Structure formats: structure tokens, C-alpha cells
């Protein structure tokens, strides 16, 4: 089976990490553990699951456990519908992995530093940081925390962000924050819950960025988007 990964490569053409992942997945069908032999048929499920775990965790690990769960769920569902799994093992694996990649590519924030190509709508500068506070580990670095909560960044955002009822439009939110009481713009952007955190979203309606929160240079990134420098 030849996986057609070109559309995804095009989509992530600037992101080296994604290209590497896709190359790995394209060659997955030749993995010795996945060859459909009669001897292999009886043991196919545990081996297939182990192989998927191994590859998915290694290659798609940054997308979180949802990807792995999605892969396993899809494979289990197809297996139930097609009892003679041995004859279609590699097709199913390829399809499941491809489905996972497609799913992940639509949800995952690209690791590259480039702003997202589609401008996030806004009536002025808005900044959202999504991070994790209660995971048991300080998931923001000390440098990120000092910059994020510091006076210099606050001064810039207070002076430049658009206002919502007099409040400058920037928020630093835990990824699990209930959003029902927040204005719609924040609700829309928090659909990023499945994305990698900490996440930075910056837009002024003309240029925007949605990607990992820099570990140093948060203000520079925001200025880059807002001022086009």
C-alpha cells in the first residue's frame, strides 16, 4: 500500500519535524513486524497494537494521547468488521495510521516558528496564552513565567491591545478553564485545547501567529506580529 502523504507534506512544508514524521509513516508498511503472513495472522492484533503504539508514541507523541487512542479505536473498529484480518493487515494499519495523521495534522499546532497562514480575525491586537497549571510540574519555564507575568509585557499589552469593556484583550488561561462566560473570541480560540501547550495566539486582524509559546522572546514575537517587524 502506498500512502499518499503529499497533501499533508504540502500543508506542513515549512515544518521539518512534520516532514520527518510523514517520511517515517510512509515507510511503515515495510516494517518487518507488519508483514501479513499466515503465521503472523493469529498474533496480528497484539503485534499490530504494539507496533502502532511504538510508532505512534515515537512519531506522533507530541500530539498527545488522543492520537494514539484514535488509532487504536479505528483499528479495533475495522477488525470487528473484517474478521479475516491477516489479508488486510497492512492496509488497515496504513489506513489507521493515515487517519491518525490526518486527524492530528488538522489539530496539532505546527512546531515551526512561522505564523499560521490564515489570519485570525480580530478588531485589534489580541493575545492568548494557554498553559497548564495543575499537572504536577511547572510546565512554564521560569523564563516564560517571568516574561509572561512581568511588567514589560503587561505594559506593551495594556498600551496596544484592543479593549473589551475597558479591559485590554489579553488572557493567560489554563487549558482547562471553563469558557462559557468568556467573550466569543476567547471561546473560539480555546478550541485549541487539544493543541500543544503552552500555546501562544497573537493576532491584530492583519497578521497572526498560533504556535508554541517561545521560551524567551515572547514580547518580541508579539511585536513581530503586531508591528510587522
Amino acid at each position, binding site marked *: 500500500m502506498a500512502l499518499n502523504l503529499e497533501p499533508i507534506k504540502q500543508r506542513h512544508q515549512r515544518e521539518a519535524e512534520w516532514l520527518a514524521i510523514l517520511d517515517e509513516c510512509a515507510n511503515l508498511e515495510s516494517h518487518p513486524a507488519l508483514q501479513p503472513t499466515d503465521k503472523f495472522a493469529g498474533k496480528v492484533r497484539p503485534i499490530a497494537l504494539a507496533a502502532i503504539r511504538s510508532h505512534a508514541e515515537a512519531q506522533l507523541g507530541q500530539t498527545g494521547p488522543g492520537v494514539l487512542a484514535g488509532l487504536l479505536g479505528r483499528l479495533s473498529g475495522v477488525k470487528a468488521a473484517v474478521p479475516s484480518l491477516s489479508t488486510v493487515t497492512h492496509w488497515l494499519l496504513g489506513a489507521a495510521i493515515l487517519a491518525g495523521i490526518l486527524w492530528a495534522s488538522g489539530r496539532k499546532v505546527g512546531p515551526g516558528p512561522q505564523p499560521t497562514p490564515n489570519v485570525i480575525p480580530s478588531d485589534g491586537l489580541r493575545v492568548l496564552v494557554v498553559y497548564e497549571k*495543575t499537572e*504536577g510540574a511547572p510546565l512554564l519555564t*521560569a523564563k516564560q513565567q517571568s516574561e509572561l507575568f512581568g511588567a514589560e509585557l503587561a505594559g506593551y499589552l495594556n498600551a496596544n491591545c484592543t479593549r473589551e469593556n*475597558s479591559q485590554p484583550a489579553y488572557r*493567560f488561561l489554563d487549558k482547562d478553564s471553563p469558557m462559557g462566560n468568556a467573550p466569543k473570541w476567547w471561546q473560539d480560540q480555546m478550541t485549541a485545547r487539544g493543541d500543544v501547550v503552552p500555546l501562544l495566539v497573537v493576532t491584530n486582524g492583519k497578521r497572526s501567529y498560533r504556535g508554541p509559546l517561545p521560551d524567551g522572546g515572547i514580547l518580541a514575537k508579539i511585536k513581530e506580529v503586531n508591528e510587522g517587524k
Partner: protein
Amino acid sequence: MRITDDMLGYGATGLIPRDYASFPQGCYASAPPAQIKLIPRTEWSERIKDMEATKSRLSDIRLRGNYGKAIPSLDQNSGRNDGKWGYCWAHSTTHAIMLVRAAANMPYVPLSAFAVAATIKNGRNEGGWGAQSLDFITERGVPDQRFWPQNNVNLANGTAECWANAALYKPVEAWADLASPQDVRDLTFDQMATLLLQRIPVVVDLYWWSHSVCAMDLVETSPGQFGIRILNSWSDSWGDQGTGVLAGSKAIPDGAVAPTVVVAA
């Protein structure tokens, strides 16, 4: 400003020791504090200096969290009853909620600690402890003072509209039971310090003072020695704009809880 003995009796307190027989460790819903990955003491001094230099402490955020001005300290002392309301344990938690919101840059809203304490105590002037108020606020929230004014214990304030508003200020995640009833108190201090270094306010019960306050910052009081800067509930006229620094054993909590995530606005 270091808190001196003559500052301790300025206002009412109201902490009563938690009844661990009736409210044992783990009875309050939260993430287990054992999951807190401690920031090593060797890093504290440098982190504190960096936080001071960048003005990124919770106390700094408080000073600009009210549309560029300071968030006023709530006051448990004024009003009727000769200004002696033993509701510190609800003010400390309410302050913590307001600081969590400020750190997220949510709009400043003055919240009513009296709504929490008066409702729990059915209008009586009685003491309590921080986890007790956090437990209540987690379930019902804490309302805007427009719905339930401070220094008012009239339960008629507690309308459906009031508590619907209160639900907008609920915490949904918290660290609770940081303190064990008797032991591992050093660990408790380190847990608290770790949270403060991450800009998470901590509700601190102090038996020696019979008082509950909100810890905002970890402070290096002398080389290698650490204390906490607290936000008291005795108005901005107390201490340094309502704040002061506790050092040594006086900074070690007998009970501590920390709301971390609140409803977004």
C-alpha cells in the same frame, strides 16, 4: 514591610483550627498536593531576584490588576458588630480567587468574602478555616459585591441572582490539603513556595496568629532564609498597602489550599 508584633492586633482574625476528625485530609476535592513537583530550594533565591527584577510577582500583578491600579485589600473589620468579624478564613480565599483572575488578566471584580462566610455560618460571627471557604466557593462560587456587599451578613442578599453571579467566580481546579495536621511541615512550606514561584496564590492558615491570609510571594528575608509576603484582610491602611512579610516559623502554614484555575471571563 516586615510584620512587627504591634501590627498583629490591628484587626479581627477568626481562624479556628480545622477539625480534622470531621474534615480529614482528602475530604476536600482537589488534586493531591503530593503531585506538586517541587522547585528545589537551590533555585529559589535566583528565581525571587528575577521575579523582583521583572516585576512579575503576584504582588506586582495585584498592584496593576485593577485597570492599571492596585486591587484593594478586602476589609473584614468595618461595618457593624464593632468592626470585629471573624471572617478572615473567607477573605483569604476570596483574595486568592481575585489574584488568580488578575494573573490571567481577567477584568477586576470586587468579590464578597462576607457572602461566603455569612452563608456558611448562617449569619453568625464565627471562625473557620481556609479549606472550608474554598470548598464552599468551589461548589457555589463567590459573588460580586454588587450582589452581596462586604460587611453585610444579611442572608436575604443570597438571592438566586446572587448565586448565579457567584458561579461566574468559581475555581475549578485547586491544590488542597497542602498541610498535614501535624507533620511534614517543611514539605508544606516547600509546596507553598513552589506554588508562589509559579504565581499561584496560597491560602494560609496560621494557628499562632489565629488568622488566615493569602500568600502572594516567596521572599528571601536574609541570605538563604525565606518567608512570604501576605495580603491581609485589614484594608490597605494596614502594612504596606495591605501587605506584609512573615519570616521564619511564622511563615509556615498550619493549613494551606490553593485555587489554581477559575471560570474564564
